[in-house]
């Protein structure tokens, strides 16, 4: 079974500054994917960034980057130059790609508030 742990229920950051959200996971699979999703008040789940476990290079998407530490099973999200629109709930998730099991397992989420 997979588990995903987000130890920061809430965080805040000043606009234009950098913030890092933590995530650890546990899986017995060799092939898996890790994701960060953003859920603003509109409740739409938006994919922020995705990391394949077999890739050593950390994924980046514009202001968003991850620090993927496979041995430590850690997958943190760094948001640079924070913007007011980044205020949202952020969920870390894992997905095993072995066999036909493509179910996502989510952490409990971190509520990020960007202050002006």
């Amino acid at each position: 079974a997979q588990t995903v742990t987000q130890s920061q229920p809430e965080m805040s950051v000043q606009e234009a500054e950098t913030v890092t959200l933590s995530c650890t996971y546990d899986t017995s699979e060799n092939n898996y994917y890790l994701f960060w999703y953003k859920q603003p008040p509109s409740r739409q789940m938006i994919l922020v960034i995705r990391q394949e476990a077999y890739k050593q290079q950390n994924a980046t998407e514009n202001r968003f980057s991850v620090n993927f530490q496979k041995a430590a099973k850690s997958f943190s999200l760094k948001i640079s130059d924070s913007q007011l629109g980044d205020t949202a709930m952020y969920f870390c998730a894992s997905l095993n790609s072995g066999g036909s099991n493509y179910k996502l397992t989510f952490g409990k989420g971190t509520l990020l508030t960007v202050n002006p």
Partner: protein
Amino acid sequence: SAVISQKPSRDICQRGTSLTIQCQVDSQVTMMFWYRQQPGQSLTLIATANQGSEATYESGFVIDKFPISRPNLTFSTLTVSNMSPEDSSIYLCSVVRPLNTEAFFGQGTRLTVV
């Protein structure tokens, strides 16, 4: 990417009634999933909607309470039956494309049972 249309976006229902939520995808997908997000909580998988066969339910969820239909590769429905206030949640459908292992979500249905 995949465009997913989920209806209704919100509803307020009387206890004891049922609500059917629809999920329409703009292209054929093998895997569709239904999640529940209780207030202030994370997403919990209810079931995997299988085309041409019965849905596969997760522990704690049963077909009598959450019947699911999947008549084709672009459409699925989730019914919340005999509702109680404890069923008040956001319900989301999701699809996964195995080719690039990306998951996409509908806009969610905010259900309030009174």
